[in-house]
């Protein structure tokens, strides 16, 4: 994956160099603090980002993924249970006959292959990116909430109130306009820098290491091997949406 990125960055640099008109000096490609990130990156159609959650490693009293998500994306809390925004939640699975133990697992946007939210969006604000991420172009969102109704996983929330940039909030994430819909982005800004989503990083650091993230199309990644080898399940497979958040040990 890194090789591809490097090659792409090189190609981008060459393209920019040749595009320059004579006499115009291009700002020397700045070296960001993490110098491994090339100046230009692009989503690749060959990639398919996915997540695998090992339910057995997820304990009921741990919520480090939620805290990390809130910190990274400064997801606003309004103090109103009906209107609070949740990108990732912990849900409990209880067996009705009580034959299986109660399970606790994180639920987030499944980034479906056939997302109903995108299908119903009247303005084209919800879309599938080339690498399989289901994202919202908030510049185009009119807040009609069709997508919230269409999503069977309750992954989407409307921003009901105006928000302020929290002190010490991540400057890479804009604050939300009032009246747009938002949801988990798999931390797209981190993925584009070659990093893992904030919840996955937090889970491996201070949680049980239950979450695994990677490119499902690359046979060398751990996630593609594990999804291939192990018995994994997705939520509501019967709907045929092909979610990209897989669960192991349900």
């Amino acid at each position, binding site marked *: 994956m890194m090789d591809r990125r490097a090659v792409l960055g090189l190609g*981008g640099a060459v393209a*920019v160099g040749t595009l320059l*008109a004579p006499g*115009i*000096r*291009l*700002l020397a*490609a*700045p070296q*960001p*603090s993490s110098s491994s*990130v090339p*100046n*230009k*990156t*692009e*989503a690749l159609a060959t990639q398919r980002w996915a997540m695998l959650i090992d339910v057995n490693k997820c304990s009921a009293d741990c919520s480090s993924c939620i805290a990390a998500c809130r910190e990274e994306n400064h997801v606003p809390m309004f103090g109103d249970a009906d209107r609070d925004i949740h990108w990732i939640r912990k849900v409990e699975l209880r067996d009705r006959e009580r034959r299986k133990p109660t399970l606790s697992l994180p639920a987030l946007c499944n980034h479906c292959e056939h997302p109903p939210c995108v299908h119903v969006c009247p303005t084209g604000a919800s*879309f599938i*990116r*080339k*690498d399989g991420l289901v*994202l919202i*172009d*908030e*510049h185009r969102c009119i807040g009609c909430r069709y997508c919230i109704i269409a999503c069977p996983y309750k992954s989407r929330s409307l921003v009901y109130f105006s928000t302020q*940039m929290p002190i010490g909030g991540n*400057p*890479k994430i*804009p*604050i*939300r*306009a009032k009246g747009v819909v938002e949801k988990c982005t798999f931390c*797209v800004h981190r993925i*584009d820098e070659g990093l893992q989503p904030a919840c996955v990083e937090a889970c491996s650091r201070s949680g049980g290491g239950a979450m695994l993230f990677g490119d499902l199309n690359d046979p060398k990644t751990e996630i593609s091997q594990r999804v291939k080898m192990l018995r994994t399940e997705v939520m509501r497979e019967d709907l045929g949406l092909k979610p990209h958040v897989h669960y192991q040990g349900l």
Partner: protein
Amino acid sequence: MMRLREVALYRIILMAVVGVLCLMDNMPVWAMGAAVPQLQPAQDKPCVRDPAWMRRNHPEFLRQKRDLTVREGVRVRNESLARCATCHQDRAQFCDRCHQYAGVDPNCFTCHNYVHTP
């Protein structure tokens, strides 16, 4: 014939009144006869494009890049809005003064932060 001319005259007057009312709502500073603002000079480095070109085309430049970044995932790090803030450090002295002068009200900063992020 006379009536037609009268109607046309009234129409022009009405349009003028509406136009003046619209202007009063968000009067560009140039309409009040102010001089072109001298913007805060950039910090030492040259711009990613020719400054004269940027002056005219930055809305389209940023809008096109916005769509490319959001929808196609193309991220050119030294051409992002956040990079503007490395050289033009004060938004009030750079973006806002000229926007005020031109009487335009772009809504980039209702959500986006004008802070340089490495």
